[in-house]
């Protein structure tokens, strides 16, 4: 299936909902103007949008977490990139959902968005995940903040690849960092039996781990993934790994991919000024297959999704 860059554009969107998920996370649903229909109906999981939040006000001082009270006062100039967590595109409306974590001045301002507010965005941007219907097994590995594109991908795989078995490995520092996945913590009885709503609703078997062991297995997501691969030895020709998370985790997953000979796609993050291929700020060091040397690709255009064996991991 094609995952190549689609035509992109600048669109206004009105906020349908901006719902908090725990203290640090939120889910923002945006309804795009009509003319966004064609580009967004062709968008793929793993692509992203750039949102202009430079003109939003800060939340009330009391609502600003102490550790952000200083940096919150910085002005915003550039747009901020966010992966799709879902796209719902019908003839009459285009709805894009993003999941965001409050980390600094822009995401703090996003918390103040209310239903019917208007924001401006550019998208769909970049190159998303490659999907092939003939895979027997798709392994999703999400670390920390890397959840959003994999939540979208899970839905797309379920719809498009009915014959593919999907299993997910999800890791976070601690229990509350799993909020993106709609975690049902209060109902938990056994620590390792964690239900993540976002995957459970598609009947995707999920293995959860936390660094502190507050839920699921204690340890890194790459450890639970490695254990599972060792035990199950899936046939690499019929399987694929999709992963998103901190770069150290992606590089460890890339190593597992070559050890077990399973192709792997990683979704990377870089600081972006434009997000549209204009500025070259988002360089990703890659192997140059023709010369044997290295070259820089652009995270915003050639990525954010790359094959793990083309990236030079440092």
């Amino acid at each position, binding site marked *: 299936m094609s995952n190549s860059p689609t035509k992109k554009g600048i669109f206004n969107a009105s906020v349908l909902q901006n719902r908090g998920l725990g203290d640090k996370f939120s889910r923002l649903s945006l309804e795009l103007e009509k003319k966004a229909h064609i580009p967004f109906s062709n968008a793929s999981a793993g692509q992203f949008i750039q949102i202009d939040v430079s003109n939003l006000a800060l939340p009330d001082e009391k609502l600003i977490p102490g550790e952000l009270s200083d940096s919150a006062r910085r*002005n915003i100039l550039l747009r901020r990139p966010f992966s799709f967590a879902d796209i719902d595109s019908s003839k009459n409306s285009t709805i894009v959902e993003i999941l965001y974590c409050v980390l600094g001045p822009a995401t703090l301002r996003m918390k103040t968005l209310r239903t019917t507010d208007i924001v401006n965005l550019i998208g769909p941007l970049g190159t998303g995940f490659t999907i092939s219907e003939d895979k027997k097994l798709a392994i999703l590995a999400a670390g920390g903040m890397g959840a959003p594109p994999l939540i979208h991908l899970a839905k797309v795989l379920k719809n498009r690849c009915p014959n593919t078995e999907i299993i997910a490995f999800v890791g976070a520092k601690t229990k509350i960092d799993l909020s993106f996945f709609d975690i049902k913590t209060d109902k938990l009885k056994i620590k390792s039996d964690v239900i993540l709503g976002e995957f459970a609703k598609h009947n995707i078997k999920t293995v959860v781990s936390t660094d502190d062991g507050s839920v699921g297995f204690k340890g890194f997501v790459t450890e639970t993934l490695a254990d599972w691969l060792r035990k199950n030895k899936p046939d690499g020709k019929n399987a694929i790994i999709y992963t998103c998370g901190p770069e150290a985790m992606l590089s460890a997953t890339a190593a597992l991919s070559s050890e077990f000979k399973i192709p792997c796609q990683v979704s990377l993050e870089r600081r972006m000024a434009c997000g549209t291929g204009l500025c070259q700020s988002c*360089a990703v060091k890659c192997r140059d297959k023709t010369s044997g040397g290295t070259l820089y690709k652009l995270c915003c255009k050639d990525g954010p999704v790359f094959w793990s064996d083309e990236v030079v991991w440092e």
Partner: protein
Amino acid sequence: MGIKNKDIDLSVSLGSVKLKNPLITASGTCGYADELDDFMDINLLGGFITKSITLKPRLGNDVPRIVETDSGMLNAIGLANIGVEKFIQEKILMMARYKTPFFVNIAGQTIDEYVAVAEKLSQCPRIAGLELNISCPNVKQGGITFGTDPALVRQITTEVKKVVRDKILIVKLTPNVTDISVIARAAVDCGADALSLINTFTAMVIDIETKRPVLANRTGGLSGPAIKPIAVYLVNKVFNEVGKPAGVPIIGGGGIRTASDAIEFIIAGATAVTIGTAGFIYPDCAVKIMEGIKTYCLKHKISLAELIGSLK
């Protein structure tokens, strides 16, 4: 009915090159043009300036290459580009699809390199002119040393001018000098057909947790709205002290985001204006700025020619 926006003539001349309006993309901020296709009709622009092109391809710096600052950003891309050979083979034909005149920005580590790049490009009929980047602050042995030393500016302008044939030669100045007019005069004396200013200010952002600079290159160039008032001042200074007496046009830029920003530069003495950082946020903003300039001219019953350098 009276005159409308569409009847306003915004055409200007840079030496022998006529632009249908004064809006030009700034070097390094608009890729090789095709990246903008989805957002705007490139043919609406007055001109297009490419990323700096060097003799050999350059990979550029490690990341982070950019960091946001209050009302601005630092970049240290490190002149990442495909090199002049590949540029000629792959990009010129693509860019020739547009009617907009395009200018190729060139950079190098030695005078010989500049001359070699200029020589190759001057054989391409579709190129309207070359912009000499003697001001990129990111490359250790290159940029900055040329643009801050009047003797080197004379030498490099003279040598490149010899090979550019019918193309116009624009010299792009760095603001990282004590007196920018001294450098401007050196360029004009040695044959610059136009001056372009300003490039970015050398700057640093420190991560106070690690006590390290945020950029891998340690320093970067500050661009965006933060530099605009300084850029307006410098354009006016160079216009009064060099451009106007010598009859050499100025391409002004630095932090332009709105039509009123652009009009400030024109009043200060700029014949044309460049849009850089602002295009990262609104890639189609040049078109809106152009409409805004027309509206202004209509409202004030003034032609663009009269507006240039009209500062009281």
